């Protein structure tokens, strides 16, 4: 059994090497994704990544998906190391658990680019770059939107006052923690008169957020604004407020603009959000990876722009596909 395994490993390594040699002028980018198909963002991301790779000369992409499974992702990392790809892009299933696999790639001399959500800090030494949205900045942008929304006519946003609630993403998820932190820190600076009465997780789930918001509506007679960690949850909160006939009193601010959020904005019920395109996300990751493989200098945190979107400027953006 052992010999068979060794032989298999050896043959894989050989074919891998042969593959790499015969295409010495092409760059092979291997990507292991988190969980394609579980949501539209990741589905669109994958399509955009493949299209972008096809559009580039001398770039070949090996597309893998871990299906949300940490063990499978680690195995895929090992496969990509065996194949001796030129650069590995990883969308971590778990920021902590994949660090050893990233370290192994680094030791094998293959640069690693982390995409979308970063790995744990102890892995930073082993990666070439992080490509993705700046979630702290997104939280800060949302805080600024909240100040603008709560400012009365002619009032400076910094003087806005009000009582708001926050519906955060899945507890423990880096994106959720960073957005919440960015929002809370910036809100305290940008309009200290606005108070966050309570924060509860909506787990990125619209129905769960709807339930959380229903509880908030019972508990608080006055809610001036709701900040949700993404638009999917934001629309859940909006649904709850609609049922309670309290939409007019509340400013809804989200993040990661979803199609439903975009439409609610068009209907005038939703104040604003943060526009994050999976296509930009994928292209930025591929560009970063190719640059790293060519030995070019790239910033360690290579963010792509995620602008504010509100009822006023929404015409400048196409409706999100997810």
């Amino acid at each position, binding site marked *: 059994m052992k010999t068979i395994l060794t032989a298999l490993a050896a043959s894989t390594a050989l074919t891998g090497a042969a593959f790499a040699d015969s295409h010495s002028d092409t760059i092979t980018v291997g990507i292991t994704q988190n969980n394609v*198909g579980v949501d539209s963002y990741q589905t669109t991301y994958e399509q955009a990544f493949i299209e972008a790779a096809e559009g580039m000369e001398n770039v070949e992409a090996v597309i893998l998906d871990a299906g949300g499974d940490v063990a499978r992702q680690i195995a895929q990392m090992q496969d990509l190391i065996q194949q001796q790809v030129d650069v590995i892009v990883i969308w971590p299933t778990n920021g902590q658990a994949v660090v050893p696999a990233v370290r192994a790639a680094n030791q094998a001399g293959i640069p690693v680019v982390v995409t979308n959500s970063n790995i744990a800090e102890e892995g930073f030494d082993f990666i070439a770059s992080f490509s993705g949205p700046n979630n702290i900045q997104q939280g800060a942008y949302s805080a600024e939107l909240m100040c603008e929304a709560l400012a009365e006519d002619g009032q400076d946003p910094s003087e806005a006052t009000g009582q708001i609630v926050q519906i955060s993403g899945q507890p423990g998820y880096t994106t959720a923690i960073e957005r919440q932190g960015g929002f809370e820190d910036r809100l305290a600076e940008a309009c200290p008169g606005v108070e966050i009465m*309570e924060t509860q997780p909506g787990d990125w789930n619209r*129905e769960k957020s709807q339930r959380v918001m229903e509880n908030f509506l*019972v508990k608080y007679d006055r809610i001036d604004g709701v900040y949700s960690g993404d638009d999917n949850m934001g629309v*859940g909160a909006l*649904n709850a407020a609609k*049922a309670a006939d309290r939409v007019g009193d509340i400013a809804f601010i989200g993040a990661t603009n979803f199609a439903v959020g975009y439409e609610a904005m068009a209907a005038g019920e939703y104040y604003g959000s943060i526009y994050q395109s999976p296509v930009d996300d994928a292209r930025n990751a591929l560009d970063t990876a190719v640059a790293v493989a060519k030995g070019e200098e790239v910033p360690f945190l290579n963010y792509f722009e995620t602008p504010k979107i509100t009822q006023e400027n929404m015409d400048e953006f196409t409706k999100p596909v*997810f």
Partner: protein
Amino acid sequence: MSRVETETAASGKPKEADESAPGPDTNRTLVQILSSQGILIAFGLFMLGFGLFSERFLSLENMESVLRSSAIIGVMALGVTVVVISGNLDLSVGSMLSFGTVMVVDLHDKIGAAPGIAVMMAAVLALGCVNGFLVGILRLNSLIVTLGMLSAIQGLTLIYSGGKNVDIDPSSQDTTWFKVFGRGDIAGLDMPIILFGLLAVILHCIVAYTAFGRRVYAVGGNPTAAVFSGIRRGRVVFSTYVISSFCVGVAAIILGSRVMGSQNNVGQGYELLVLAGVILGGTSLLGGSGSIFETVIGVLILGFIQNGLLLLSYPYYTQWIVTWFVIILAVWLDIAGKRGRLFSPIA
């Protein structure tokens, strides 16, 4: 409304006749009261406790809010109760809910609300038949079968939707009659609550008062004896899974109508909440005992715990811990009631 138990289940363990400890009778009576009415007593104490600390808790508005948000879990728990009474498990209800909701929302704009509901119900019932066939007819272990179905149906959902979120066209959300299931009301009482109550009454009658219901208890209490009594075990078990999937279908309609959209994983983890409600109500995982009425109470306790802790501004992780604690307490009281004492050297 005490627990219904078959003769076969009750006679499973010999009673210890000689109890030499002082005051065994008082102890036993207390245990008996706890085990037969424990869930109602706990429920009452619970409501009283939270009511003292939060003035909003006992308000009509809050009651309605809790009932409404418990309705989806509740409807699913009704069906699962029937499966559990027959001595089996159904862990596939969470992903079946995702599947049903995605389908009914997606079909709404494509073929219309009524045909969409019909097609979705047929598809979900077919999944129930698969469960029923594997567990009832082929007699495979229900834990393995439904755990497998949990991921298989999640896979089906992703294939169906291609991973995209589905939404009902926003322009028709306020006009479609489909909104009645999740957002409508009759005389001020929300439709999800009415559907939950109606289904609970119907299933309670089926389980408690029909021959089929008695067969379900018999099969769960002692399958061998049931078969020798001429009960077709496979057929009964098959039916319980069909009932369970029907309930999931109804839950999917409520959820789709309430949210007017669906994510592919919207029901993820719901199977455990559902099972928690069933266990909390006092339906034994060993089968042969339990009732629909108790499950309703169990689900409501679960809903009120989460709501109460939220109104008192406890962080969410407190909810997880307290929920777990209450479930363990309920299981302990249940098993203590069966043993006839709170602590026992033998299982």
